[in-house]
């Protein structure tokens, strides 16, 4: 009689006994006696061909029978047989068992994809099993999110910490007028869910940073950069290079845009194109320089197209090529980009092996110094300017904005001389007259005041906060832009 120890999960088949005494001269005979006594245990241990299942190991005392004589291993009366599972596994870079089919509703929804052999059922399932991270749900993120959702991407991550503002609406079509004041994440998620409820949306209400970028990006097959600042561009680039994930890049300014795919095997990264960031303030943002509202639509959809192509594995990816788009000329050009073997991120001997401080790298101070309380020397409050007007004090209100801004709104009695024209039109001004300069928010008029002082004007002041502060404090009928 040999003793067989029954593992817990199998005791439901052994009348709850944790060990059984059985007769047999070999392991094969003992196991035969076991399954004869408890027939239901047979299919747990053996497959349909009568072989031990791959996960079943049998130990004679402390020895695996595979290293003895297997089934023929002799068994003595004092021996103990143990049934031990063999267990292994691991994420192994293998995605979860892919969703292997589409519902009837999905088949109807994607029918125009399914009838194209380049997509077909196989491609549509690739899209369904794919995950994409959108960094930013603004100008580029809006068309990206909407079209990628419609196309059937299974999982979309959204990173944004901003709130919808009226000035976003002329281009960020994922948000509507009703959404002003809401979190962009919530508004974007609602739009995506409405377009395609099959999409799993993951929201990250945060600013992408060196602390969280690897963690967030690691969850997605590819990353799409829809941001508008240099620290985040370098951060997304480095995170993608470190994680070996493609970075679908796009950028926009006024009437022009660019797009390419970085961090694709063998291709360049953003640092190969721009090893160093520009000095702070050199490149104006869209808030400063403006942007044609439909421009991000064009660039965002180039990015979306490339994302879909990468997932489907069709066509020629936009790798090693930078597409330049000029909306005014309606012309696309292409620049060749090469991976730089000396690149600190993706080169042959990378020196960037973890994420760094990107604010510092881009020369941006961590915390803006707090504005000095009250009025600085040479500044005047809009309320005081209004009182001077009401008193009838003789002074000149000088508007240094651009003519197209003057057409949006202006303060009565003001004289318009754009900042850039001031040097050649300075003779229109009288040094004896008191002058108050203003612009939109007070930055350009401060430069005008500096210029005039150097030109010998002594009685010049800057209206603090510009016409925006005038609208807030003096006349709310003046629109803000």
């Amino acid at each position: 009689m040999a003793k067989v120890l029954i593992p817990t999960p199998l005791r439901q088949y052994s009348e709850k006994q944790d060990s059984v005494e059985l007769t047999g001269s070999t392991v094969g005979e003992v196991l035969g006696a076991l399954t004869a006594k408890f027939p239901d245990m047979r299919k747990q241990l053996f497959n349909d061909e009568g072989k031990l299942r791959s996960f079943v190991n049998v130990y004679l005392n402390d020895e695996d029978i595979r290293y003895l004589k297997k089934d023929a291993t002799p068994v003595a009366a004092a021996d103990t047989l143990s049934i031990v599972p063999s267990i292994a596994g691991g994420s192994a870079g293998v995605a979860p068992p892919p969703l292997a089919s589409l519902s009837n509703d999905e088949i109807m929804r994607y029918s125009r994809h399914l009838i194209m052999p380049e997509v077909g059922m196989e491609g549509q399932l690739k899209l369904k099993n794919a995950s994409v991270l959108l960094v930013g749900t603004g100008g580029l993120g809006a068309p990206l999110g909407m079209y990628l959702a419609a196309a059937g991407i299974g999982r979309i991550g959204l990173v944004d910490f901003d709130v919808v503002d009226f000035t976003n609406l002329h281009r960020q079509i994922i948000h509507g007028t009703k959404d002003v004041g809401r979190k962009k994440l919530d508004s974007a998620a609602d739009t995506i869910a409405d377009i395609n409820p099959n999409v799993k949306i993951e929201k990250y209400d945060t600013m992408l940073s060196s602390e969280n970028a690897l963690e967030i990006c690691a969850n997605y097959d590819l990353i799409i950069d829809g941001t508008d600042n240099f620290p985040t561009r370098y951060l997304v680039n480095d995170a993608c290079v470190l994680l070996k994930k493609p970075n679908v890049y796009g950028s926009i300014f006024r009437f022009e845009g660019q797009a390419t795919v970085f961090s694709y095997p063998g291709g360049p990264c953003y640092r190969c194109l721009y090893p160093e960031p520009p000095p702070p303030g050199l490149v104006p943002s869209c808030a400063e320089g403006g942007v044609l509202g439909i421009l991000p639509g064009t660039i965002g959809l180039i990015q979306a197209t490339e994302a879909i192509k990468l997932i489907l594995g069709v066509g020629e990816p936009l790798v090693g090529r930078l597409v330049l788009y000029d909306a005014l000329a309606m012309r696309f050009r292409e620049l060749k980009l090469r991976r730089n073997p000396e690149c600190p991120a993706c080169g042959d001997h990378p020196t960037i092996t973890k994420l760094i401080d990107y604010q510092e790298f881009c020369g941006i101070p961590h915390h803006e110094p707090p504005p000095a309380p009250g009025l600085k020397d040479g500044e005047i409050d809009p309320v005081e300017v209004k009182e001077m007007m009401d008193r009838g004090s003789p002074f000149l209100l000088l508007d240094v904005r651009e003519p197209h801004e003057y057409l949006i709104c202006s303060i009565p009695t003001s004289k318009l001389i754009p900042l850039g024209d001031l040097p050649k039109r300075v003779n229109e001004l009288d040094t004896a007259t008191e002058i108050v300069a203003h612009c939109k928010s007070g930055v350009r008029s401060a430069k005008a005041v500096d210029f005039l002082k150097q030109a010998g004007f002594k009685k010049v002041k800057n209206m603090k906060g510009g016409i925006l502060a005038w609208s807030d404090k003096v006349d709310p009928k003046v629109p803000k832009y």
Partner: protein
Amino acid sequence: MIKVDPQAWQVMVAHAEAKFPNECCGAMIGRIDGDMKNVVSAEPMENAYAGAQGARYELRPEDLLEADRRARAAGLDLIGIFHSHPDCDAYFSKTDLENSCPWYSFVVLSIKGGKFDHANSFLPNAEQTAAEKEDLIWPKS
């Protein structure tokens, strides 16, 4: 449903975080009462996978046999296996499925950036073709 007691959970998470960025593995010991499984202790085990362990693990059957003996001696049972997925969600991967065993609960801990993120428990079938998700209760601090 499988419920993990605080002390056992602490051992599992600490082991998974300590082994990051590699996968960890171990056994869960406890009691089964009808549909309710209760893990009272966890035993970290060595990852015996021979290659890179960033996305693979393997348990030595000898270690499991030993754990099973100790559990029996304490009047408890070996009821589950845990392992970690570094920088990866706690899904049951194809590799997990193809090397699984239907007798135990398989708890997967997602460790992201070295910190515990979330976990799931799975019950694979005997053919190793599918795994059913099992309700998992762990102590939330």
